[in-house]
């Protein structure tokens, strides 16, 4: 009986380990399969030509994704420009200004914001934001600005939640010490709490950035998707993600490979951000140790 139990225990441990290892296996599988499809065209066309080429005429075999890289950077920066102050402001408000009870009532609202499907945001952008921009700023309305506004709403929950956690994790002694020295609550927030929580807030921003770069459907619906470097924030634009999603359904041969290669560029960008967020998170642990 005892031996049997031990045998069962060992089997179960192995099964559990196998399940946990599936995640590693899937990440490897994704990397390998996307690379296998995309590498041949990068090799044939040249990495620099591919990344820095300004012309994207896939049907004539001209594959330059520079405009899309710029497009992704523009809409992401736009979203961060609005989203970071707004999100960090919300986080401070929820963690420091209102009592916990009220924060608890407001929290489901932020969760709901995170739960609304991206395609619904895109649809809202198409029927409300794009016409508004057209009316007040001119142009077609399909623009960097429209995408930035929609992405702002989409990255807000990420920024609010993670920054709020970081602010709440600041030891109460720090705050008490500052208040005891005669600082006002706002001075304490500005000079003590925010600097202490900065690595957590950085993590929030990096993750929000990842979400903005990776977003696809909402962006397609509001940007107009012209594969050209935008001259202003009112010009249409195409991102790396929309390049893939729009052309995948009808592409073939080298064109499909070029889309996978676009995926590789996106993948490298995101992996870089993932490593950054792991890094900022490790900083946060360091903060706690020294504090």
């Amino acid at each position: 009986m005892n031996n049997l139990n031990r045998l069962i225990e060992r089997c179960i441990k192995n099964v559990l380990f196998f399940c946990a290892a599936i995640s590693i296996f899937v990440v490897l599988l994704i990397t390998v399969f996307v690379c296998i499809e995309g590498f041949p065209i990068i090799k044939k066309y040249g990495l620099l030509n591919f990344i820095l080429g300004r012309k994207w005429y896939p049907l004539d075999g001209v594959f330059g994704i520079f405009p899309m890289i710029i497009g992704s950077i523009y809409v992401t920066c736009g979203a961060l420009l609005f989203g970071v102050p707004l999100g960090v402001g919300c986080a401070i408000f929820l963690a420091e200004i209102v009592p916990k009870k009220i924060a608890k009532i407001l929290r489901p609202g932020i969760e709901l914001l995170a739960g609304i499907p991206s395609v619904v945001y895109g649809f809202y952008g198409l029927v409300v934001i794009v016409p508004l921009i057209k009316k007040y700023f001119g142009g077609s309305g399909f623009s960097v600005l429209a995408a930035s506004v929609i992405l702002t709403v989409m990255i807000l929950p990420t920024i609010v939640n993670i920054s709020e956690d970081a602010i709440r994790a600041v030891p109460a002694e720090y705050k008490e010490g500052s208040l005891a020295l005669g600082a006002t609550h706002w001075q304490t927030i500005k000079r003590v709490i925010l600097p202490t929580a900065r690595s957590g807030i950085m993590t929030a921003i990096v993750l929000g950035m990842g979400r903005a770069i990776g977003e696809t459907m909402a962006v397609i619906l509001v940007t107009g998707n012209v594969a050209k470097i935008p001259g202003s924030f009112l010009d249409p634009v195409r991102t790396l993600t929309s390049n893939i999603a729009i052309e995948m359904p009808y592409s073939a041969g080298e064109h499909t490979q070029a889309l996978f290669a676009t995926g590789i560029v996106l993948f490298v960008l995101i992996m870089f951000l993932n490593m950054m967020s792991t890094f900022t998170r490790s900083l946060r642990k360091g903060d706690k140790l020294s504090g």
Partner: protein
Amino acid sequence: MDKKLIEQKIAVFLLGACIAITFFLLIAVIGHILQKGLGQISVEFLLEEPRDMGREGGIFPTIVGTIYLVVISLIISVPIGVLSAIYLTEYTRKGPILKAIRFATESLAGIPSIIFGLFGFTFFVIFLKLGWSVLSGSLTLAFMMLPTIVRASEEAIKSVPDAYRLGSFALGATKWQTIRKVVLPTALPGIITGIILGIGRAVGETAPVILTMGSALRIPWTIMQPARTMSVHLYILASEGISMEKAYGTATVLIIVVIFINFLANFVMRKMISV
């Protein structure tokens, strides 16, 4: 002194404005869509097949497609996710393997959905020859949901007091018996919350679903047939300008589903805290 207090008042006002803007955005989006979409919803809209590419009729096949996708991807991801979480919390607490697994789950959570779509397309649809089908879509989405389920289950299992485990060991139970009979039942509400949030993600995904499940507007009878979900339907209606009325209707159904899912997740979570 006065200057400091004035600065504080301005700061608090601005912070309040941030929250006000955020909630205004939330209400603006939901309000606009419900206001234009609620009128579209009727029994016929929910239970009829679409006609003329979706210009007329209802969205019944896309509801079936969504449920199909959610159920199959849960069948795949829940066991894997919960078992991984048990391994990560109960069997290893430190070490390089744990680090590697953690990094992998975090990477999975960060990989953009379109990359999952590309992967699902080349691996499941082409390489494994599953074609555009409910199965290809569900496998792809199962991996996307995995991090959500692993993380929520881990948190739930970690919050089970050690005294419960020790009590069970003291009665002579083995480790697995303790996990199965004591730890899992206690952690169940937290795990269910994670699963519900995973469902929310599956309902809302669009890009990877188009690439792996196709967008056929027929009711899928087997898991080897292509299908269209509500999100994909909304995307196609809106991007091709087929019918804005039907798009509002579909968006309204999606929002109601998401509100319901969030409400449910909060309800289960609260239940856990009160236990």
